[in-house]
């Protein structure tokens, strides 16, 4: 079975390398990720939010509803661990 897994892994890696050949080079200022949406955030976020840190401006202002969801996910993870692991017993039982 291990040869099947190895072959699947190598096939996936080969496909991904084939796909990566067409990706833009590292640090290319004209790559699609750097030229379509982000210039608008970089140029306007300081004037719109008056906050110098663009990461925080996007995280806590433009996408604040999304961050509320992420915080709820962390909260849910803590409650999940509490319900799965903590023993709800009286103090006398130590």
């Amino acid at each position, binding site marked *: 079975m291990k040869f099947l897994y190895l072959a699947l892994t190598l096939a996936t890696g080969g496909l991904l390398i084939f796909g990566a050949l067409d990706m833009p080079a590292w640090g290319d200022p004209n790559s699609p990720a750097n030229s379509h949406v982000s210039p608008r955030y970089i140029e306007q976020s300081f004037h719109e*939010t*008056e*906050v*110098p*840190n663009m*990461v*925080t*401006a996007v*995280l*806590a*202002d433009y996408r*604040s*509803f999304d*961050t*509320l969801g992420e*915080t*709820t996910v*962390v*909260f849910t*993870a*803590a*409650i999940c*661990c*509490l319900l*799965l*692991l*903590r023993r709800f017993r009286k103090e006398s039982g130590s």
Partner: protein
Amino acid sequence: MIHEQESIVIKTVARLLVPFIQLFALYVIMHGHSSPGGGFQGGVILAASFILLSIAYGLDEVKRRFSIKALTVLTSAGVFLYAGTGVLCLLLGENFLDYGVLPVVEPRGMGMLAIEIGVGITVMAAMVSIFHDLLDFE
């Protein structure tokens, strides 16, 4: 279950480092909107200080100072502070989480600071609570 370490070097270094780690974590949270940092990062640094204390002094010592019930309450208090800021904006006549109407100077920065504090409290309490729950199991 982690018990108290024997080595005096580990205990002394942990005791000396923890206040500075916590101070740095508070700095990272409070300056999240004007320098590198934010609620997630600062909360994780703050949780790391409590985990270091747990490793050096044992879980019971940390629980005696900072009870696990308080951690559970803090976990939900952070989310409450976050959503409460949004509802406050709603009550002042704007959209949910639109900080422009808060009655303070630099309303957008202060609104972001409020929700970053909420995120920091939640992340810190959740990390420490997960760590304690995982180690306390039987």
